[in-house]
Every structure is written in C-alpha cells, then in structure tokens.
C-alpha cells in the first residue's frame, strides 16, 4: 500500500486560512490503512480545524466527506454535485489522489493534507515500513525476496558495504542492513550462488529516472 503521514496541522491551517468554505475529503484506500487520511482522520482534522478557526474568530465552514478512492475517476465524480459549494478542498488522499482530483476539478484549489511517503507494509499497527521503490524491473527472484533497492540505503546490487554493523545500516541503528537480510535469507534458502556472482549495473530506464511512467495494457482496453 502507499503509506502516508498526516501533514502538520499548521501547514493545513496556512493552506486554507483565507477561504470561507472548505471540504475535507478523505480516501478509503491506502491512507485509511495507514491511519492518515481515512474517514476517522477526516473527522478529527475537521474538528481540530473548527476549534482553531472558531477560537481565532474566523468564519470558516468546514465540511467532511470520504471517497472510496481518489485515484479513480468514477469515485471522484461523486463530488461533482457539491464541489461548487466550496472554495477549496483539502484532500487527505496520497499524492496521486490529490493530483487526480485537481485534474478533474481544474478550477478548484485542491490542497494536500498528508505527506505521501512510500510503498510499504504494516509491520504492526502504528509501524509502517518501506519495501518497494517501484524500479519497474523486479529482481526479487535472485535476492531471496528482499529488495536491495528499497532496503539498502545505497541501493547496492553487490552489497553489503563496509558500514554494515551487527545487521544494521551505517545510517541508523534502527535501520536494518538490507544486504545482511538478503544474505541470511539466501543462506536459509540454500541460494548463496546468487551471492557469489557479481551483478551487472542496473538498467534504470524503467524507474523514475527514465521519466514519468505509464502502463498501457491493450489487452484490457477496447
């Protein structure tokens, strides 16, 4: 899932302070899973903003809603009837959702309410961690199911580097050394041959470096 973090409320206040009627729009997808932008978070944010603006004697009406997903036009359409009532929207969806909403409702200022961080997993409630960098050419088959591009701070393909200590990365004792994990897993799987051969330089064309990406699947289009 895409993992995000709520934006500091001061930033959101700054985004909307000059408007009169604002809609906070959540998303029931990824941001609900990481408890940053679902309907619960919409309610809490809206309430906190109301407290702030009431205290400041500023008339700012704040309404709440949540969409099934904001990365799908069909769901974004649901706002068509009411969007003109508002001066601005704060979208708690991930960066993709915020942009898609802005593309559909071009004349409305759409502000982000979360900071989108990474593709990751729920290690436990309250702890979400990065797992995938979307490089476009998955190599997990030869690294024991652990990705060196997302889990090695230096995205080495022939790691670990000389800074790996007690299974942790040189940048922080809280960060696992991705290559230490890969080595241990390859050992468990009896696949240490993958470790012995030098891996050639990666073709980064399919990653962000090749330019903004698109997938077109003719087999599912008419």
């Amino acid at each position, binding site marked *: 899932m895409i993992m995000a973090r709520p934006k*500091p409320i*001061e930033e959101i206040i700054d985004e909307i302070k000059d408007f009169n009627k604002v809609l906070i729009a959540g998303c029931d997808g990824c941001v609900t899973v990481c408890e940053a932008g679902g309907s619960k978070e919409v*309610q*809490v944010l809206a309430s906190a903003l109301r*407290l*702030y603006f*009431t205290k400041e004697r500023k*008339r700012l009406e704040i309404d709440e809603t949540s969409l099934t997903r904001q990365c799908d036009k069909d769901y974004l359409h649901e706002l068509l009837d009411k969007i003109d009532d508002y001066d601005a929207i704060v979208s708690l969806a991930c960066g993709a959702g915020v942009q898609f909403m802005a593309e559909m409702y071009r004349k409305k200022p759409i502000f982000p309410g979360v900071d989108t961080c990474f593709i990751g997993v729920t290690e436990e409630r309250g702890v979400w961690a990065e797992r995938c960098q979307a490089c476009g050419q998955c190599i997990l088959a030869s690294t024991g199911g652990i990705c060196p591009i997302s889990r090695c701070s230096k995205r080495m393909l022939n790691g670990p580097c000389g800074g790996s200590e007690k299974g942790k990365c040189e940048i922080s004792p809280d960060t696992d050394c991705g290559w230490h994990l890969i080595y241990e897993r390859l050992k468990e799987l009896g696949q240490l041959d993958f470790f012995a051969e030098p891996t050639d330089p990666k073709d980064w064309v399919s990653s962000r470096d090749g330019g903004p990406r698109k997938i077109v699947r003719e087999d599912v289009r008419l």
Partner: protein
Amino acid sequence: MRLRYPTNIKIIKVPCSGRVAIIHMLKALEEGADGVIVAGCLEGDCHYQSGNLWAKKRVSYVQEILEKIGMEPERVAMYNLSAGEGPRFAEIAREMTEKVKELGPSPIRDAKKLASKKSKVEVAA
C-alpha cells in the same frame, strides 16, 4: 455516598475508558466544554485488558492537537481510579474544576456566543 462535588460536571458513562475516541473529546470542546476528563480504571486493572492504556494515548494525542492550535492542553486530562473510590472521584472533579477555572472559559464558548449574537443582530436588522 452522597459526597459533594462541583455541579458543573456532566458525566457520560461508557463501558470502558477505551471507548472514548479522539473525536469525542474534540466534539465536546467544539460544543463549548471548558474541559474534558477521561476517568479510567487504575492501570493494570482494566477489565478489557488495555482499554485505559488506549484512552491515555488518545488523551495525549488530543493534548498535542490542542497545543498545536493554540489551546491549553490542560483542558483535557486523564485520571485513573477504581470504581469504588467515591472520594477520589469527588477530589478529581474539584481538582479539574479548579484547574479549568484558572484557565478561564473555553475560547470556543465565547466565540460561539459572539457569533450567535452577531447572527441574531443580522436577523433582526
């Protein structure tokens, strides 16, 4: 026990302090409450294991929000006591009332009063 405690306390009963959500505390303040007390069982004695620990976390979170928006975080507080501790409850009620009196009325209540006066005047005019 018929102990005396201040009459300004409105009690809302819940089966466990863990039932209290962040939005409940914020809504109470939105409606103009000067303060919010979450009273839960003593730590370690929660009938539902950790409900009071969740409550503590949520109260903390609300205090953080209040601080960030410029309201006094002391308006929301968590207290732990056992169901049989009548005198302690009265004490908590007095303590919190004193604290909130010192802080003054909620800035929300004043602002709402002002806003409704304004709109009454507008209607009259």
